[in-house]
């Protein structure tokens, strides 16, 4: 069985875990530079603070209703996330970190999965103060859907819901609207609705053939997963791929080249890491950039550039060097970019590499990469990175409402009042 563990209002919960004044109070967390709301607890949600609410527009309500606000404290959130993920290893050796506040785990056999879910929830809350929701099911897509049930009915489920019978699976799929299926994009949603499917159940009633033709192999995998046949596997179980890609839509749009360069460096590093995980090397690096095509009144630019490498490599440094060259070729100033990606192809097994007489990867990179991978695995959170990744982004931020770094800085640890009580 698979379980997904999802931290409830993660950033707000981290703040609350170290500041008892915030218990039962509405709280909203602001984005980098304190621009807008990126996380809020249910009390703040109930007072009408939407996600993405710009601070300046809501300042009045915030003061009126006495809503607490905090700048993003990524040192705290990062550390708390790492704790949650590490603690999950007490329940299963197989943990796949899905995002800063979500992880899939593979559960060992149990008589009572509902109870396992409750045990996980209680243990994580006791050890970190972070409330979580647990969805348990035979496949990843179903566990995500089970988690939707927990989020919708927190009191009834008490924080955990297990799909452990066929009847429960059918009931879940009949309840789940197409919109809320994990990983259904806009295009597929429209296709399914045109076909008359409103719920996940109706989606699974379509023929494999139709799904494959209209929604590609990815859609078919999702259908199988919803049918209870584990098809979407853990990242490291997936067989060696022929293409490796890291592509993302940004939370906000970027025009500044420095920001885009950093994103490309991070994507290149992630790709190179995946490459080394399957002991492959690549011969080709492709980079693309896209503006937001939904914003019709803005200048549009979509471009990609493919570079062939002089030799096959899996070194983060070399792949990034070429990714940055490709970026230089396609970057146009004055465009608001919404999406970017790095794609590696021409993959070969590293141990079957032909050595070239003149052009080969610097042998020092091999050791460096091995050390980097070992350290990152040991300490988690990709602590060893290239200088071009991240870093200065957090330096010059506006953080007027920043809380202390309770767990990562000695001068910031909590203080216990033994003076008046």
């Amino acid at each position: 069985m698979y379980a997904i563990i999802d931290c409830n209002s993660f950033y707000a919960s981290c703040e609350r875990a170290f500041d008892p004044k915030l218990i039962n109070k509405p709280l909203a967390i602001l984005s980098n530079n304190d621009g807008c709301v990126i996380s809020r607890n249910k009390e703040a949600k109930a007072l009408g603070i939407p996600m993405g609410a710009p601070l300046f527009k809501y300042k009045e309500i915030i003061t009126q209703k006495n809503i607490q606000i905090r700048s993003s404290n990524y040192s705290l959130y990062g550390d708390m996330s790492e704790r949650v993920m590490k603690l999950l290893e007490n329940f299963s050796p197989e943990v796949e970190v899905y995002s800063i506040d979500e992880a899939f785990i593979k559960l060992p056999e149990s008589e009572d999965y509902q109870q396992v879910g409750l045990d996980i929830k209680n243990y994580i809350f006791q050890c970190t103060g972070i409330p979580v929701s647990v969805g348990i099911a035979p496949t990843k897509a179903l566990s995500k859907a089970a988690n939707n049930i927990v989020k919708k009915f927190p009191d009834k489920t008490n924080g955990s819901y297990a799909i452990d019978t066929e009847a429960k699976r059918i009931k879940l799929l009949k309840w789940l609207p197409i919109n809320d299926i994990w990983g259904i994009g806009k295009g597929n949603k429209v296709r399914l609705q045109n076909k008359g499917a409103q719920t996940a159940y109706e989606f699974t009633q379509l023929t494999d053939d139709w799904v494959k033709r209209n929604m590609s192999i990815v859609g078919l995998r999702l259908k199988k997963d919803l049918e209870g046949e584990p098809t979407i596997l853990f990242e490291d179980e997936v067989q060696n791929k022929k293409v490796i890609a890291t592509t993302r839509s940004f939370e906000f749009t970027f025009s500044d080249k420095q920001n885009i360069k950093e994103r490309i460096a991070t994507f290149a590093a992630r790709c190179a890491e995946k490459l080394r995980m399957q002991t492959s090397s690549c011969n080709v690096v492709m980079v693309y950039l896209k503006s937001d095509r939904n914003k019709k009144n803005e200048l549009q630019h979509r471009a990609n550039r493919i570079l062939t490498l002089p030799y096959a490599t899996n070194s983060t440094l070399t792949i990034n060097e070429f990714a940055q060259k490709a970026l230089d070729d396609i970057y146009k100033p004055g465009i608001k970019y919404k999406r970017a990606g790095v794609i590696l192809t021409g993959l070969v097994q590293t141990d079957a590499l032909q050595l070239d007489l003149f052009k080969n990867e610097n042998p020092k990179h091999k050791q460096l990469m091995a050390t980097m991978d070992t350290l990152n695995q040991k300490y988690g959170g990709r602590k060893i990175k290239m200088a071009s990744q991240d870093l200065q982004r957090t330096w010059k931020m506006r953080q007027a409402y920043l809380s202390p770094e309770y767990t990562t800085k000695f001068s910031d640890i909590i203080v216990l009042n033994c003076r008046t009580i």
Partner: protein
Amino acid sequence: MKKQKNDNLLTFYKSIHGNVALEYVSEGISAGFPSPADDFKNERINLSEELINDPNTTYYARVNGESMIGAGLDDNDLLVIDKSIPPKDGKIAVCCVDGEFTVKRLKITDECVYLMPANDNYKPIKVTKDKQLVIWGIVTYVIKKV
């Protein structure tokens, strides 16, 4: 090792590890006299290993004030807290009472919970229904500057 063929002169073994590929040593190999101490090397004493049972459930806090002086918790002492330990009668615990962090000894009776100071100038706190109490973590070590 699995014996494959045996005669009087030579014995052949097949590696059970399959093909062993030798690394290409890019830095070269230095061949000096090895340090005789290498065989006796041990890790240095690490205070964290001694004081921390699980780094993922361990937190730190600073004492401000003297209400726990009788239990050896002085003003400005550093506390090591393990949140994974369940609260029990007699343990020293970091608690949140009405929106504030404090540290007290737990006295758990059948009727209710008391937070006991260790200083005659302070009164025990009886935790009643109108009081909001969270037992945040159990204190495992006190570190003080001499």
